[in-house]
């Protein structure tokens, strides 16, 4: 059984078909990348998986069960975490607070016990904090723990968002352009982290990325999209050498600049 499976998913905005009959399956333990030019429907697929959009037709299965009957806020509880293309952090809170919000799905206390701050709530807080500290150590965020998001540089925000998603301790991690806007060094860090997330943490990764170097370096399989339709699926090199992909997406330009 695949961890995540999209079956003939189609989404229309008005007259525009953003995603057209796309099917693919993400296996447990792999890094799966979606590539394609802007407007190909990659982020739209992410938004359907996290239930911000509902497909016009088709089905989305997570661990064999359809998630289309779930509300947006129930997705994280299933074990699907995500980051956003345009960074959506809680600006008026510290890095630590942001990452602690990631623990929300593990909350076992309710608002009454929390207002009384019972010993149980305190123990839970310690547990949440330990989980968050693991993510902080993993991503080297120690210097920023107490800093407000509003004052942080772009690269750090990007990492914090990834840390917040990891704090959920998900089964599936959706990374929406994890390297966009990052320097070469920062992108290398991201590549290492994705490797470790897969190997050490055992989390399956589905990502959208334009940087073909990163995609080739970390992903096991790649799906190329154009105009909402599947062009090719396979290993990074297979997809890069696929005639249809070269024709429609990479064009005659240099590979790396194609996005």
């Amino acid at each position: 059984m695949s961890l995540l499976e999209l079956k003939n998913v189609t989404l229309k905005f008005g007259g525009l078909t953003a995603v057209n009959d796309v099917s693919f399956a993400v296996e447990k333990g792999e890094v799966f990348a979606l590539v394609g030019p802007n407007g190909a429907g990659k982020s739209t697929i992410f938004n359907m998986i996290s239930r911000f959009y509902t497909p016009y037709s088709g089905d989305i299965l997570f661990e064999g069960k359809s998630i289309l009957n779930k509300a947006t806020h129930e997705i994280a509880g299933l074990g699907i975490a995500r980051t956003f293309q345009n960074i959506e952090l809680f600006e008026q809170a510290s890095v630590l607070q942001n990452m602690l919000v990631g623990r929300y799905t593990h909350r076992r206390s309710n608002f009454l016990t929390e207002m009384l701050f019972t010993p149980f709530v305190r123990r839970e807080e310690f547990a949440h904090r330990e989980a968050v500290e693991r993510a902080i150590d993993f991503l080297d965020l120690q210097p920023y723990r107490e800093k407000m998001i509003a004052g942080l540089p772009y690269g750090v925000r990007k990492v914090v968002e990834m840390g917040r998603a990891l704090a959920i301790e998900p089964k599936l991690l959706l990374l929406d352009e994890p390297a966009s806007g990052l320097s070469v060094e920062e992108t290398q860090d991201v590549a290492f982290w994705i490797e470790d997330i897969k190997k050490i943490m055992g989390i399956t990764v589905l990502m959208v990325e334009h940087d073909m170097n990163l995609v080739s370096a970390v992903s096991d399989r790649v799906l190329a999209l154009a105009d909402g339709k599947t062009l090719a699926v396979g290993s990074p090199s297979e997809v890069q050498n696929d005639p249809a992909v070269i024709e429609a997406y990479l064009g005659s330009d240099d590979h790396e600049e194609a996005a």
Partner: protein
Amino acid sequence: MDLLQLLISGLANGCVYGLIGLGFVLIYKATESVNFAQGDMMMLGAFITLGLTNQSYVGLPFWLAVILAIVIMGILGYLLEVVFIRPMFGQSQIAVVILTIAIGFVARFVAGLIWGHEPQSLENPFVGKDVGFGGLVLGLDEVVIIGTTLALTGGLYLFFAYTRIGLAMQAASQNQLAAYYMGIPVKRIHSLVWALAGALAAIAGVLFASKGAIDPSTGLLGIKAFAAAIIGGFGSLPGALLGGLVVGLIEPLSSRYVAAGVSQIMPYLMLLLVLILRPHGLLSQVKAKKV
């Protein structure tokens, strides 16, 4: 015939709400902030006219006083923007709401100092005169109010839809930073809009005062006008007028057909219903944010 009379007077009331609402919408459309002092600006406009024309004060001719009041309120609107609102540039809507509420308090206080807290009447040429429309007898004040409102709404609508500066105002509201990049002088445009809203408030004030007495707390009418503008659909000029008319009509009708005490509640009940069923008003302009 009695019902028709009731409807006309309701329409005239609604037009005054609509005119105040236009001021709200104007500022909102162009600057994305809400001026809660719009009602108090109307009150000031009315009092300035009253102070200039009434025999017990300066005693200028009525029309001269009206023009002067419009100019003074325009300048006041401009200055309010430059001194108080501009430092708030880019901050949240609610901060501006709170600031303008405070400005309204101050306006009420100043008006009380100058003109006192007793209700006063504006001496005007419309009072007590009637116009006949094929058997139907209407008060001249009501006819003037309805006519002026229609003309102003139409003019402003055309202004936003077709003039360069009107379009620039719309652009400035939708994304300040992008508007900057496009070379639109966002700040100057904001000041101009406030000046326009001030002038509009003066006209609304004169029209309101021509129907009855005013006192410094008249500005609280702004809350009802704001509710009306929201009912119509905030951000839409015809919506503001529509909302004003709806509220203007529902008040006399509900007190006549339901119960006298209910007419106070009706506009707000209506507002809540509209907000729940159509959260952004009858003529809605809101789209969902892209993730």
